[in-house]
């Protein structure tokens, strides 16, 4: 195992911080586009964790998983932005609170 100059704990702590910031963004912001960007932040935090473990454990499977996460994120963005476009086309300026027609 090759031990890098920077401990894996630092990378994982940064990743935890990034994940938490993304979670705060999803909960605080009401603009659906910005909420989406916060979800991207959380996905990137997870990717950073995977790559860190791939280096520490000498296992390339972590990098392969990151590749799959990238693909799923791209598909998610395409469908999510399609939904946002179709909602915002009907009511411009809608926030996440306005799209509550499906609530129980």
């Amino acid at each position, binding site marked *: 195992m090759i031990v890098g100059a920077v401990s894996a704990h630092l990378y994982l702590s940064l990743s935890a911080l*990034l994940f938490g910031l993304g979670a705060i963004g999803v909960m*605080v912001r009401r603009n659906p586009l910005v909420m989406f960007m916060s979800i991207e932040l959380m996905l990137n935090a997870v*990717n950073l964790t995977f*790559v860190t473990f791939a280096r520490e454990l000498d*296992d390339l499977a972590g990098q392969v998983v990151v590749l*799959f996460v990238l693909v799923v994120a791209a598909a998610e963005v395409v469908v999510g932005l399609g939904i946002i476009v*179709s909602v915002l086309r009907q009511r411009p300026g809608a926030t996440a609170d306005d799209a509550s027609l499906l609530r129980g």
Partner: protein
Amino acid sequence: MVESFVFAVAAVVIVAGAVGVLVNRNPVHAALSLVATLFGVAVLFVALEANFLAAVQVIVYAGAIVVLFLFVIMLLGVDQSEDLDVEPLIGQRPAAIAIGVVLIIGLTGVVLTSSLTGAPAAHEWVRDGAEVAQIGRLLFTDYVFALEITSLLLLVAVVGAVTLARTIRGETVDLDEPVPVLPGDPVDLIDEDVE
């Protein structure tokens, strides 16, 4: 020593970009802050010897996904500022920030107090500089089923996006046009003022 410096700079850029996404009122500025974070993560990928993923990160995330975000922002004209001072639910924002801080503290605590363990790798990472070939070999041997599912997922996403974005011709209702009265319609529902 070099890695420590790179890590410090990239960490500052990443955190600053993430905070920028959170606090920027203008969605365009938030998207640009997101680009900073994504580039910082790509730099850390290089520091973690994942050169291929760093390139993919820049191309796919910063190149495609953020541009898609900007396209939607410009297309819809939703680049007006969000009013961050109005609280939709009383106490929701402090509660959300408190939950987020607890989450960060909990995750960091777990990370810092535990030691790294793990099973030996099933496929040892041979650091010969040809990691792209190794990743490709893994993709088409061990993870070939996941790869096929991924292609299906992309197909479904494309079809879904086209379906969502399509406007059905002929079914749009012209609101200025008076509704024709059909035999059997209750007469009292018809607005008499329509000329």
